[in-house]
């Protein structure tokens, strides 16, 4: 992953995480504020409800007081007490209730029987369900289920006593229904519902609202059921098609502590949902904007950072490719990158310096080695020549016949010595004159075959060690940019070495292979192999393990292979044989350089 991509990913990730965090935090705090506000509003509404409830109760109590104090009721009470027939008063309650604006009114005798009922006249003579003389001891108003001819209703009622022993009990009140709810002042976004808990099963009929009936609100039923069962407050958020609503359900108890009603205060969360939606969308918007800005910014920063780095990498590749004389003037940098560029330039200069010194040292060492070798090679034939001259000198005093014998022998020795000297000088001269390869399209297989053919006669000569030659040629190894003559000479050297390594006979194998745009040639023998030290000095010019040899054979091979852009290596196991392995690029030295550049560090693979 490039720096640019990484920077981009990092900026995007930071922006995205920040925006998500801010959005989540703001949403959560908005939700919390809304919840707190909602709780306040709900509490205020419930308080208002209780106040209205108390006021309504006071009204009911006041009106019942008036009825109880009215002349007609006082008289009726006196009449009933004096054993008048109660049937005469059966119609009394109706006008009284109407006059005081009560929905329910019963006149009940001291023994608990109904004398007159405003809301259900036919109940005359029945035992009253909830009002006795004893109940009248308390003047407190309370919630009560009141039976009507068609249905049961929820009423806010009170009980009063008229007259002494044997007098009347007056019980009455008002319905708790839509009208009562309409008296409440609702803040915007809030509504209030009342469930009248007067049937054994939950019934939608018993749910009333200020505006109309709420028979569709079946989703409220589980909440109502819960409050009915536990008798404690509960809150739930219900998702309506037009938005969520937080519903708080508060139980309203009757005189005996039974839950008779459930007050439902609804607070629409539509605004909150809209706000959260707005926050979320702004988050998305800011996030997108931030990421866009980040992308632009990181691209700019990355370009500033990576362009010089890429230029530096390009220069480094050039240096790796062997082009040492590079300038970094075109790399525009500042700060640390300028330091890097300067350091790179210094390093390149030092490398060039170092390389020059190394080349010089190598050249000196090579010259020294050449001189040493040359001296040794020349000294070998000189030794017998020198002794021969001494012999001749000493032989001058011998008789003629004996001198002749020494003289002839000395001439032969001197001639042989001169020939040897000539040979040595000729070999060194050849090596020094070895030209640069002339590149042509050549066939490695043909070169191998020809080189091996040159040794056939030598190998098949009587008395020669028995060496079996095996050619294992890859049919694909027929094309290479190279110098046939030089490659042939290199191969001859390797073959000669292999044959010399097997004075007692053995196996000589020459193999060609094409692997990865390079021709591989392997010459292996089954001779005594090389020691570790011999192997390490193998390619040093003028090193030899042989009595007669200039030590130039492998140096020539290496020189040819290097000139062809190839490589040479040797594998040897003492006692098992030696294998020389040449690797020659099919395209010649130029292609080898190109491949090396491609393989340079930092280059794309």
């Amino acid at each position, binding site marked *: 992953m490039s720096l640019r991509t990484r920077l981009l990913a990092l900026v995007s990730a930071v922006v995205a995480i920040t925006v998500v965090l801010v959005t989540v935090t703001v949403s959560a705090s908005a939700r919390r504020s809304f919840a707190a506000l909602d709780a306040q509003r709900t509490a205020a509404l419930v308080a208002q409800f209780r106040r209205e409830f108390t006021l309504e109760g006071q009204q009911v109590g006041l009106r019942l007081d008036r009825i109880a104090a009215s002349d007609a009721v006082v008289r009726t009470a006196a009449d009933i007490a004096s054993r008048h027939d109660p049937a005469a008063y059966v119609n009394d309650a109706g006008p009284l209730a109407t006059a005081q604006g009560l929905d329910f009114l019963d006149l009940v005798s001291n023994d608990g029987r109904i004398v007159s009922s405003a809301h259900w006249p036919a109940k005359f003579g029945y035992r009253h369900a909830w009002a006795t003389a004893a109940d009248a001891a308390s003047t407190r108003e309370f919630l009560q289920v009141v039976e009507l001819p068609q249905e049961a209703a929820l009423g806010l009622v009170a009980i009063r006593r008229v007259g002494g022993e044997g007098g009347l009990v007056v019980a009455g009140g008002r319905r708790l229904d839509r009208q009562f709810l309409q008296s409440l002042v609702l803040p915007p976004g809030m509504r209030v519902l009342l469930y009248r808990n007067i049937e054994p099963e939950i019934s939608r009929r018993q749910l009333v609202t200020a505006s109309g009936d709420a028979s569709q609100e079946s989703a409220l039923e589980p909440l109502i059921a819960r409050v009915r069962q536990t008798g404690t407050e509960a809150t739930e958020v219900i998702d309506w098609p037009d938005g969520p609503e937080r519903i708080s359900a508060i139980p309203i108890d009757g005189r005996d502590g039974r839950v008779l009603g459930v007050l439902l205060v609804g607070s629409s969360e539509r605004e909150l949902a809209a706000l959260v939606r707005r926050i979320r969308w702004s988050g998305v918007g800011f996030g997108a904007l931030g990421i866009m800005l980040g992308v632009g910014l990181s691209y700019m920063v990355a370009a500033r950072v990576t362009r010089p780095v890429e230029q530096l990498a390009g220069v480094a590749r050039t240096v790796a490719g062997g082009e040492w004389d590079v300038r970094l003037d075109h790399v525009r940098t500042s700060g640390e990158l300028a330091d890097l560029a300067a350091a790179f330039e210094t390093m390149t200069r030092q490398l060039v310096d170092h390389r020059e010194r190394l080349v010089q040292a190598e050249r000196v060492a090579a010259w020294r080695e050449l001189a040493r070798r040359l001296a*040794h090679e020349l000294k070998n034939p000189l030794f*017998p020549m020198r*002794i021969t001259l001494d012999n001749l000198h000493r032989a001058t005093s011998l008789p003629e016949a004996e001198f002749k014998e020494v003289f002839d022998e000395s001439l032969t020795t001197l001639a042989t010595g001169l020939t*040897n000297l000539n040979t040595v000088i000729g070999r060194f001269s050849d090596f020094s004159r070895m030209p640069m390869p002339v590149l042509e399209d050549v066939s490695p297989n043909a070169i191998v075959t020809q080189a091996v053919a040159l040794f056939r006669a030598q190998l098949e000569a009587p008395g020669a060690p028995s060496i079996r030659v095996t050619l294992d040629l890859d049919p694909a190894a027929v094309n290479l940019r190279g110098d046939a003559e030089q490659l042939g000479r290199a191969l001859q050297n390797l073959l000669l070495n292999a044959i010399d390594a097997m004075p007692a006979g053995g196996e000589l194998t020459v193999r060609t292979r094409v692997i990865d745009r390079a021709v591989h040639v392997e010459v292996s023998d089954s001779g005594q192999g090389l020691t570790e030290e011999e192997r390490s000095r193998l390619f040093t010019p003028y090193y030899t393990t042989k*009595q007669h040899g200039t030590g130039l054979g492998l140096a020539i091979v290496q020189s040819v292979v290097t000139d062809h852009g190839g490589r040479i290596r040797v594998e040897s196991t003492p006692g098992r044989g030696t294998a020389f392995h040449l690797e020659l690029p099919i395209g010649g030295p130029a292609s080898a350089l190109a491949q090396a550049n491609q393989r340079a560090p930092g280059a794309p693979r």
Partner: protein
Amino acid sequence: MSRVLVVDDDASTLASLARAFRLAGHEAVVCDDATRAIVLVKNERFDIVISDVVMPRKDGLAMLAELREAGVTTPIVMVSGQATRGVE
């Protein structure tokens, strides 16, 4: 007059050295192979052995070691044109 054995793989060296000893009035025997030289030294009497160091097959130093191991006390002089490591 002494009896000298000259061991060297180079014919010219062998011939010139042998001639030099003969001219000095000694008897010189030549041999171009260390293995055969060992057999000669064990079976015949020599006053001194002159030997090359570097020879194909068996070299002079190996020959020297083998002869000394076999209890031969004949003086042996090593002659070398090649610079040995540490000794010129």
